[in-house]
């Protein structure tokens, strides 16, 4: 096989000197918990390693994850594709079509058994034998199951693959399920967001390539480095939240001053993502900075935690919908009426039925 452009060469081409490359390798060695003497080994690996094959499958989705990915500024997506990974299957951009495209999957699967990364955008619908998503004449869920068998690990791109997203919102007509419900015997790295931030996506990929290991995950299976804190924890409008200064209506005085969007339904306090720090599109902005609350797009079930412009989510009880406060008001009225009526009847009975309160039995100790 002909020589492969390695990670080292990529760095060199980007103007990184031999010296800083060596330094980078010893830092890498250290962060991997390796003895400094092993640094040259890391360097050697980076200089010679072939690019890791990546197969990028698409289920039920809107392709916004791919669109986001190609917006990556650091690293540039062309560098990711030309020098970091070998994107051997991605039906959104690949040259081949039809059976020539499907052959790429089979070839990589056999040539790189256990060594390729399976990236999944979108999710498999499992209702009615998977007929709501057919790729290459087969239900997508079958393609996913097959390709996952020999993968090294699986990356769930976006909220679709990670949680189910919009097509899994009630009543989930196609019975779409997240990838980890199908792939159970492989590490699944969730990179949620609708879509995820470009640099978070390429950050996860370059982490795996650079450090030769999978990122550390939190309880929900998301890389800790990007998903361990809420938008609210690092939101620049937080001082206004703490002060109690809120946007009360769209385009009001407070909106123009950039007050907190909590009352407009902002889901920042309940959303784990990197937006308030990494921001979007090379740091240009993020939803809150542009005046709209966070809708919680990286969260499980965020579509069913609406309405988006209310702080309290709707809870449906026997088909009727209202938020907790509205339900409480309804129940509260009922309880109030009940108590008043009970009190009235009690008083009436007390006046009329003297017997009722006479000679009650002896007090008992009650049950153990």
């Amino acid at each position, binding site marked *: 096989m002909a020589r492969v452009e390695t990670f080292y060469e990529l760095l060199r081409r980007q103007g990184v000197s031999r010296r800083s490359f060596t330094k980078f390798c010893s830092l890498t060695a250290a962060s991997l918990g390796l003895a400094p003497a092993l640094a040259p080994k890391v360097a050697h690996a980076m200089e010679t390693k072939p690019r890791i094959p990546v197969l990028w499958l698409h289920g039920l989705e809107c392709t916004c994850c791919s669109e986001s990915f190609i917006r990556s500024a650091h690293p540039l997506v062309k560098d990711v594709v030309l020098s970091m990974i070998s994107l051997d299957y991605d039906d959104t951009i690949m040259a081949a079509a039809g059976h020539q495209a499907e052959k790429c999957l089979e070839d990589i699967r056999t040539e790189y058994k256990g060594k390729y990364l399976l990236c999944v955008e979108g999710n498999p619908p499992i209702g009615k034998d998977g007929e709501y998503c057919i790729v290459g004449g087969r239900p997508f869920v079958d393609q996913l199951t097959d390709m996952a068998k020999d993968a090294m690990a699986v990356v769930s791109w976006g909220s679709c693959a990670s949680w189910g997203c919009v097509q899994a919102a009630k009543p989930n007509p196609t019975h779409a399920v997240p990838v980890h419900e199908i792939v159970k015997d492989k590490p699944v790295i969730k990179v949620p967001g609708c879509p995820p931030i470009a640099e978070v996506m390429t950050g996860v990929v370059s982490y795996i390539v650079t450090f030769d290991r999978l990122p550390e995950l*939190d*309880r*929900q299976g998301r890389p*800790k480095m990007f998903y*361990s*804190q809420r938008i609210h*924890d690092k939101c620049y409008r937080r*001082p*206004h*939240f*703490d*002060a*109690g*200064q*809120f946007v*009360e209506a769209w385009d009001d005085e*407070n909106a123009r001053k950039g*007050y907190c969007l909590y*009352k407009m339904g902002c*889901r920042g*306090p*309940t*959303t*784990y993502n990197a937006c308030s720090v990494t921001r979007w599109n090379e740091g240009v902005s993020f939803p809150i900075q542009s005046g709209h609350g966070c809708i*919680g797009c990286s*969260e*499980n*079930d*965020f579509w069913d*935690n609406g309405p988006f412009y209310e*702080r*309290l*989510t709707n*809870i449906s009880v026997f088909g009727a919908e209202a938020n*907790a*406060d509205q*339900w*409480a008001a309804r*129940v509260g009225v009922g*309880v109030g009426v009940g*108590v008043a009526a*009970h*009190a009235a009847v*009690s008083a009436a*009975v007390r006046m009329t*039925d003297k*017997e*009722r*309160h*006479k*000679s*009650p*039995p*002896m*007090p*008992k*100790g*009650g*049950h*153990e």
Partner: protein
Amino acid sequence: MATDSSTVPHIAPAPDAHGGEAHRHLTSYYVYEAPVRLWHWLTAILVFGLSVTGYLIAVPPVSAEGDTNDLFRMGTIRELHFIAAYLLAIGMAWRGYWAIVHGQHARQIYYVPFWSLEWWKEVWGMVRWYLFLAKKHERWVGHNPLARASMFGMFTLGSTFMVLTGFGLYAEQAGLGSWQDTLFGWTLSLFGSSMALRTWHHVGMYLLLLFSAAHIYAAVRDDIMGRVSTISSMISGWRTFRD
């Protein structure tokens, strides 16, 4: 179903086990020790305070005006909520300890004799009584079975739920790896998302408020009509049966 032996009647004569004329005078039992009473009233205040601050967290007051630097309105509301939350949790932990080391009355609110048919009959008896279907009801030194059921189901489970979900929410700000996260972080996974956790924490408040409303009504009513001291027993510790 034995009469409680640990409760010594305050005033003789000892009641006739089968009721009747013999005890047509005041009989008192020492039911609630001082720490329990203190705990009760503290809890009552905390639940009330947590509900007020919690509601204001969910539905904040109209925007504060002035210098952002000098204002900490939302911050203060949250801080009060958290202080009250810690006190409530500590109180509950203490009350749990008390139940272990003390007798029957102290344990009543922690479980119900779910498998005892007898007990269910008693519950039914009380339900009939409150629905004016029965002319008489039995009496208990501790909680009546219906009260016990609601204390267990709504207060004990309800407040435990609030502490679990509340600390689950608190873990979010305390951060991954904090002790709150280690102990309570799982609640988030249980509910599926942070928003759902918050929603259920919010719903839990109404469960407790519902309990409080029914509980206070029943206490006041019984005090007047039940010929038993209830409110004062939570003040003095003595339960007095008036006939």
